[in-house]
């Protein structure tokens, strides 16, 4: 009897989960971070299924794993709420609206494929699409402002040269090799870096000044640095304008208050781990 009731609540939760993620998938234009910030509002603030801190961690995980960020976040949130089935339901539900809409668009596109108007519209649109991509490059490249490691810059320049050469068909190879090569080089560099830091740490007694720079290598494994937390907070509130222009009735002020500067309790809780 009790088991039966649990099963009922479980299915009720699944249906709620599906509906919530279906709505999120249907209303967020621009994908990615725009979707994450809507997710934060709906799943963390309205439904209170997860906390704001958990959401920050989910963003970090969704970013550092392959695939679409929004989809990864839905999978993770789904798993957190209702296990394997929850993950499946949440990710499929958030995909479904765009699948349906694009199938509709494909029908229209094929119907008008030979239309002169579509050709002209496409030609005009190209400039805006190019601008969109350049804008994405600049947004994603913000971290380079503070990047001082020459190895990162070397990888950047090397991958750019190789991919440009491949793009203009001067040399022939798959972009995937750039990504694989970067993974290998990155791993070797990180391994050496961590080993060197460890050695430096053990010499600290001799070196009274000490190297107190905040490094990813020698901090506890389960905490984000302040910088990272701040960045993830910004991601959550980032593009809020885009999202809100789509969904006027949702209140974004709550999200803005989550900036680490404004939220003292949040800051002090996570601030002491340098």
């Amino acid at each position: 009897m009790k088991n039966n009731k649990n099963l009922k609540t479980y299915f009720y939760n699944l249906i709620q989960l599906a509906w919530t993620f279906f709505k999120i998938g249907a209303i967020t234009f621009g994908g990615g971070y725009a979707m994450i910030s809507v997710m934060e509002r709906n799943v963390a603030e309205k439904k209170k299924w997860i906390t704001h801190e958990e959401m920050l961690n989910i963003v970090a995980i969704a970013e550092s794993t392959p695939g679409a960020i929004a989809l990864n976040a839905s999978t993770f949130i789904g798993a957190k709420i209702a296990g394997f089935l929850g993950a499946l339901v949440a990710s499929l539900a958030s995909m479904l609206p765009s699948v349906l809409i694009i199938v509709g668009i494909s029908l229209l596109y094929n119907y008008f494929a030979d239309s002169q108007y579509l050709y002209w519209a496409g030609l005009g649109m190209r400039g805006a699409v190019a601008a969109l991509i350049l804008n994405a490059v600049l947004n994603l490249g913000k971290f380079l402002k503070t990047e001082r490691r020459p190895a990162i810059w070397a990888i950047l320049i090397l991958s750019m040269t190789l991919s440009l050469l491949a793009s203009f068909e001067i040399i022939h190879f798959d972009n995937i090799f750039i990504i694989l090569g970067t993974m290998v080089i990155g791993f070797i560099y990180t391994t050496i870096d961590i080993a060197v830091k460890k050695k430096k740490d053990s010499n600290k007694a001799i070196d009274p000044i000490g190297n107190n720079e905040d490094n990813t290598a020698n901090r506890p494994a389960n905490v984000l640095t302040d910088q990272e937390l701040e960045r993830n907070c910004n991601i959550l509130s980032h593009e809020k304008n885009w999202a809100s222009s789509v969904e006027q009735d949702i209140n974004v002020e709550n999200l803005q208050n989550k900036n680490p500067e404004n939220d003292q309790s949040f800051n002090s809780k996570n601030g002491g781990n340098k």
Partner: protein
Amino acid sequence: MNIYLDLFLSFMKISFFTIGGGYAMIPLIQSTVTEKGWMTQDMLINFIGIAESTPGPFSVNISTFVGYNMGGALGVFCASMGILIPPFIIILFIYYVGKKFATNPYVLGVMSFLRASAIALIFTAFISIAYSTIIISNELTGKPSFNWLGLIIMVLSFLGMRFFKKIHPVFYILISAAIGIVFYGFVL
């Protein structure tokens, strides 16, 4: 190869090898779909504009579009499962086994390198799209010509996106499509 299997495997590869999501996927999608002859460069650029104006993640939009054109409903299913499955398995693995994945120093180290090469790849995608914008070949004769209007639209919408961040990018896509119809169709 069977088209369904090909769709599934290609999108699985794209999904597995793009970290960072969204526009980071464009370089791999571009090389895959143009090499397989699923889409032309021009069609892809049009579709990026369309995807920006419709809800949902870019990867899902493009996999559905290609899947539908190449193999109908089953094609959509195969392509979107290809997009979903690799991250799905990895996320579940992290959820059940490796909760500390995102803060692991090795992962963070490799990630900072991957971010750099992702930017390089997207920049290359930008160069190739900008090239297709500025140099267009005549529909009938195939003769290349310089597209002043495209360059102007590109510069203006880029400045707009940088300085008026409150305006959604869809606005620029729609306006420039309208400008395209008016100018290429009736003025030029």
